[in-house]
């Protein structure tokens, strides 16, 4: 009898604990929603890569009375009726703002590929090879500069593609299928947007093409995602085939323009060879009398992307325009104060500092700080019910600002070549991983400040929320023991300076 009671008690305990189990969400939590506006004039907004919403030609669609359209409508009716569970899941997953899902996919690929190459048996390191992405280590290593660039091209190309789509939507004014035939039941709320070309199809094709270039080993996965997404537009009763084809065509063209820019933006040379890296270090030492060294075991011969500073900027005229003042000389009073501060944090680590250091760490194997700010932006795009065009605008400016800020940050890092706390403080231990590049300025502070400026501009109702988060992200690196406080403080200013150039452009793009 005793035993029986024990088993009953065990069962009860397991049930009780199972009740405490949290759902573990694989996606950001949002469903299709009503847009707060449809931005009828969106086709006139200023584009980034092309001259305007009319640069890419889109042919006039067949009239809704035509036989061709009527045949498409019949096909749409069939496709959107008797849906399987998988089809319903796909509709519910993609939503009527699929830009956010594709951004989420980009975050996931960044996290998947954000793995630093390990040493070979002989102590050398092999770099990922874009010509042979499947070799070990796989291409790419999606570190923060790589990630922010991928996110920037993805967002900017989508933005221009959607301005183009908006231009032709309102030029041709083709009604939505459910307006032509009210017997068509749409899965998403009717939003009054003209149907041709399909905005969702633009997003699908742009995203697939950009991400396939950035993550070549994911070509099949991305093709399958795109296929499901495009099919879901018909399952949802939203677009006839010609709407989708026109959107895909815009997507193809704008992605090509974006990838042409990417091919020559200097990123392929950012990870320079050792002699170049050594000369950069020697120049800094001659200039300032200090230098940063990688002290991993075995030491990495070259820091991360010393020439990311040469990558083409979006809105900042040149890196010198945002280059910060020199950091304190080691041994100076200000420097010694910081040594004390870092030791103080390390010796008195508390749960609050530790939680902040970990929350913003976004280190290897994660979506990186730029990915983190993209994730945050998803929440606010949904909160303010942005339509896909306005969403793309948010992410385009967010990621352009962060990429410009990152390029400026990398300029400061290798121009000043400032050592890390573990280089300088004997027996210093950290709770965060020290990255493979110089200390000044802090990438987290620069990326975060730039992101917060854009978000504050777009969501002024949120007051100082984003800026406070950016300050927390900045100080998190000091708590983590891997940055000086001046890396964070000056980096914050650098990020704000960089973002202001993007905001200058945003204020004049016709959307406000």
């Amino acid at each position, binding site marked *: 009898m*005793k*035993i029986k009671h*024990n088993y009953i*008690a*065990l069962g009860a*305990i*397991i049930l009780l*604990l199972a009740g*405490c*189990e*949290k*759902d*573990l*969400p*694989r*996606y*950001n*939590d949002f469903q299709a929603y009503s847009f707060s506006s449809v931005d009828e004039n969106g086709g006139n907004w200023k584009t980034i890569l092309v001259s305007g919403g009319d640069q890419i030609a889109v042919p006039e669609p067949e009239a809704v009375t035509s036989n061709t359209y009527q045949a498409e409508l019949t096909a749409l009716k069939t496709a959107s009726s008797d849906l399987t569970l998988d089809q319903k899941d796909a509709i519910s997953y993609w939503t009527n703002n699929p830009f956010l899902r594709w951004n*989420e996919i980009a*975050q*996931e690929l960044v*996290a*998947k590929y954000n*793995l*630093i*190459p*390990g*040493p070979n048996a002989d102590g050398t390191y092999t770099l990922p090879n874009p010509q042979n992405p499947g070799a*070990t*280590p796989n291409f790419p290593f999606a570190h923060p500069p790589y990630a922010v660039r991928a996110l920037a091209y993805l967002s900017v190309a989508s933005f221009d593609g959607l301005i183009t789509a908006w231009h032709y939507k309102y030029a041709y004014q083709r009604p939505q299928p459910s307006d032509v035939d009210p017997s068509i039941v749409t899965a998403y709320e009717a939003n009054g947007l003209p149907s041709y070309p399909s905005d969702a199809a633009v997003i699908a094709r742009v995203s697939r093409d950009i991400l396939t270039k950035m993550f070549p080993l994911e070509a099949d996965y991305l093709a399958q995602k795109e296929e499901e997404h495009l099919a879901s537009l018909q399952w949802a009763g939203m677009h006839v085939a010609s709407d989708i084809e026109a959107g895909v065509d815009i997507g193809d063209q704008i992605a090509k323009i974006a990838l042409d820019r990417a091919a020559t933006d200097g990123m392929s040379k950012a990870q320079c060879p050792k002699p170049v890296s050594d000369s950069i270090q020697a120049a800094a030492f001659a200039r300032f009398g200090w230098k940063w060294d990688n*002290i*991993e*075991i*075995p030491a990495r011969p070259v820091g991360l992307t010393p020439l990311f500073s040469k990558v083409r900027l979006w809105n900042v005229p040149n890196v010198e325009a945002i280059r910060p003042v020199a950091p304190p000389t080691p041994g100076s009073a200000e420097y010694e104060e910081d040594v004390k501060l870092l030791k103080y944090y*390390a010796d008195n*680590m508390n*749960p609050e500092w*530790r*939680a902040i250091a*970990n*929350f913003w*760490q*976004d280190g*290897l*194997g*994660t*979506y990186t700080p730029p990915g*983190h700010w993209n*994730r945050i932006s998803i929440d606010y795009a949904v909160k303010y019910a942005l339509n896909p065009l306005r969403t793309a605008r948010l992410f385009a400016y967010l990621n352009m600002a962060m990429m410009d800020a990152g390029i400026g940050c990398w300029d400061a890092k290798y121009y000043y070549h400032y050592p890390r706390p*573990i280089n300088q403080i004997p027996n*210093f*231990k*950290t*709770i965060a*991983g*020290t990255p493979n590049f110089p200390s000044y300025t802090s990438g987290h502070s620069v990326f975060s400040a730039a992101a917060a400026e854009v978000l504050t501009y777009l969501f002024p109702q949120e007051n100082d929320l984003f800026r406070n988060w950016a300050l927390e992200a900045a100080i998190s690196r000091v708590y983590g*023991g891997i940055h000086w406080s001046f890396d964070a403080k000056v980096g914050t200013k650098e990020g704000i300076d960089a973002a202001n150039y993007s905001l200058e452009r945003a204020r004049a793009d016709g959307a406000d």
Partner: protein
Amino acid sequence: MLKNTFLFILLSLFLAETVKGQTTTDAIMMQPGEICLVAGFEHSWFDHYWEGPLLRTNATVATVNRNTAFAGAAVGLIDRLNFLFTIPYVQTYSSEPNGGKFAGARGIQDLNVALKYDLIDRETSAGTFQVLTNIGYSTRLSNYLSDYRPYSIGSGNQEVNIRGIAQFRSTKGYYGRGSLAYLWRGQTKAERDYYYNNGSYFTAWMDVPSAVHYQLVAGKWMLDSHFKAEVSFTGLQSLSGDDIRFYNAAQPTNRVHAGIGMVNAQYYFKAIQGLGVLGYYGYTLSGRNTGKAQMWGGGVTYQFPIW
């Protein structure tokens, strides 16, 4: 006497919590009103670990060391029913030099409690056959960070386990024992709200894979039943989970397998009634997503009636 003795081995509080502390895998029971106090220390270390199936080194962490001090007790509640608990204090650190310069971790780990019941206790002319069962529960006692591998001191999840034990001991003192347990493991909370586990997770909660734990033991009582020596093999198999990614840190969601060979001995003083000492050494023979750890440990047990 034998029946009054008690051995409480902390098998494996090493990297990645391969096997949770508190494995009440032996066949020894306390009489009602008796208590056995135990205190001990274990040192474990590894300089190789399995990244998925690949055994490798990593100078970033160099040799990872783990010291565990533990205290606990077993109490005979009523006939055939014992209550047991342990509390470990754990410290971790890397050897010098290392490439990562990471701070180690330390703190009180988890409270482990268990009820153990003697189902069958049959004496024949050849020896004694026993079947026992226990159910256990563990929960964290401090806010240590489980998502800080390989330095985290524990997994941070709650666990409920149920175990069956069978032993035969010959009249000459030889014994063989097997045990099998199911460890139901809950979730642990990281301090980041995004992680990758074969795809994105937008939450701070991580699923710690449930596991099966088993042990095979052969041993002998000697010196008029004041000394025993045994060899054992302990296995742990997670039932789900992901692999450590290339040159990346482990995380609590990993699928952990471990096979550990161990020798141990225990001596009960003749002069001091109730006092015993024990020592052991273990070596990880096989594994996945865990350190190829070695460990040695020792402890003191003291047994006396309390009612």
